[in-house]
């Protein structure tokens, strides 16, 4: 967990998100930033990582020279088995997701609403490759958390009162990890839980497109 000390806010966000994973969980890490969370888990940490294309118990990613041509994760990275890994077909893979066996999924986002709605698969006219397994992950994992930069490349907020893009799922996001803060979705909307080091609550509110409830007393930092 020494990466908690890194000055790079994105790496600190990813390291903070890794602490969301409790021992014994079955976890699916989405493509992109969430995949990096695994690098911040201690060696031997008891967790079962799942990937949509049919594996539970994902081991380390391998460079091309060492890769097995038949063994990838859903993002196309070459991975390896660990003792106890299992392979299965696509129906079994999503049976596991829809029936509630997935304790946690960490997903990327274009937009997250204060109601827990998530948009992460389509930008009409610009980006429409299909949702893959994201809809089932976002709708059926027992806990859905989002990892994203707090604002987009132009500085626009990604945490909004309502999503403007096509939805992936409604009202399922529980928590958002960003480079600025940890924000929970509550019945009353966004609630600030933690701040990135050097960031103020006021800065987080200014970068957020909806009201942000502040906790009483000191706000923990990460």
């Amino acid at each position: 967990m020494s990466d908690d000390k890194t000055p790079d806010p994105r790496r600190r966000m990813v390291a903070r998100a890794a602490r969301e994973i409790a021992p014994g969980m079955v976890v699916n890490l989405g493509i992109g930033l969430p995949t990096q969370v695994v690098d911040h888990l201690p060696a031997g940490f008891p967790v079962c990582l799942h990937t949509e294309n049919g594996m539970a118990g994902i081991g380390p990613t391998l460079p091309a020279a060492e890769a097995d041509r038949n063994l990838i994760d859903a993002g196309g990275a070459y991975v390896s088995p660990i003792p106890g890994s299992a392979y299965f077909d696509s129906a079994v893979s999503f049976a596991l997701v829809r029936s509630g066996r997935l304790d946690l999924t960490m997903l990327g986002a274009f937009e997250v609403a204060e109601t827990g709605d998530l948009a992460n698969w389509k930008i009409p006219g610009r980006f429409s490759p299909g949702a893959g397994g994201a809809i089932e992950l976002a709708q059926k994992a027992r806990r859905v958390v989002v990892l994203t930069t707090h604002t987009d490349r132009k500085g626009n907020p990604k945490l909004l009162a309502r999503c403007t893009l096509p939805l992936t799922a409604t009202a399922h996001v529980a928590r958002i990890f960003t480079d600025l803060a940890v924000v929970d979705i509550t019945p009353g909307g966004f609630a600030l839980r933690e701040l990135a080091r050097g960031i103020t609550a006021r800065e987080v509110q200014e970068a957020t497109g909806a009201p942000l409830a502040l906790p009483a007393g000191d706000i923990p930092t990460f």
Partner: protein
Amino acid sequence: MTSLPDKTASIEAAIAAVPDGATIMVGGFGVPGTPFTLLRELLRQGQTGLTLIKNDANETGMGLDHLIAAGRVRKLIATHIGLNAHAIAAMNEGRLEVEFCAQGILAERIRAGGAGLPAILTDIGLDTELAAGKQRVEVEGRPLLVETALRADAALIHADRADRFGNLAYVATARNFNPLMAMAARLVIAETETLLPLGGLPPDAVETPGVFVDRICPLTEISEEYGVVRR
């Protein structure tokens, strides 16, 4: 004692049974499990007006992409085509009709087709644009979508090992949609990396029973397309 029939066929003869306008399921998730050799033969023989059902559109310059580039594909039913810029461009320019499906629901629609069931009911995607135009029903007070079963004229399958009757076994993440599609088509054609004699695949190791498989085509070489992609 009886003996099980021999279904081995040449790749040319097997693919020649696929007509123009066919609906074809294609196994694979990315490279693993994609039947590249069968796809190459389909490209060579020239069948056109095809509807393809596959998780993805492979990557640019690989597998399905050749058929799309050659204008052979009328429609694609898929879950994610983000690694193939050609396919996205063809879709955006109206040269290729694409129907997107949630990944596990695509799997279940195919499984239903293979299991003789006309449709499945699900709440997946109810709040998304993927629900548009789909029939809704209420079961025990819950609104659900009717997702119709998928069956195809042909399924192109990649197996790791097979015997001459068409019993199939897969490896690692080359499994994916293959065992489901191998049950859901009128003509199931499987290519295999290793062809075993009858009995060479122990009964407990069979993942797709040969009963579902019509043609078994041993691969004489594993071409570069099956290899590790160096990005």
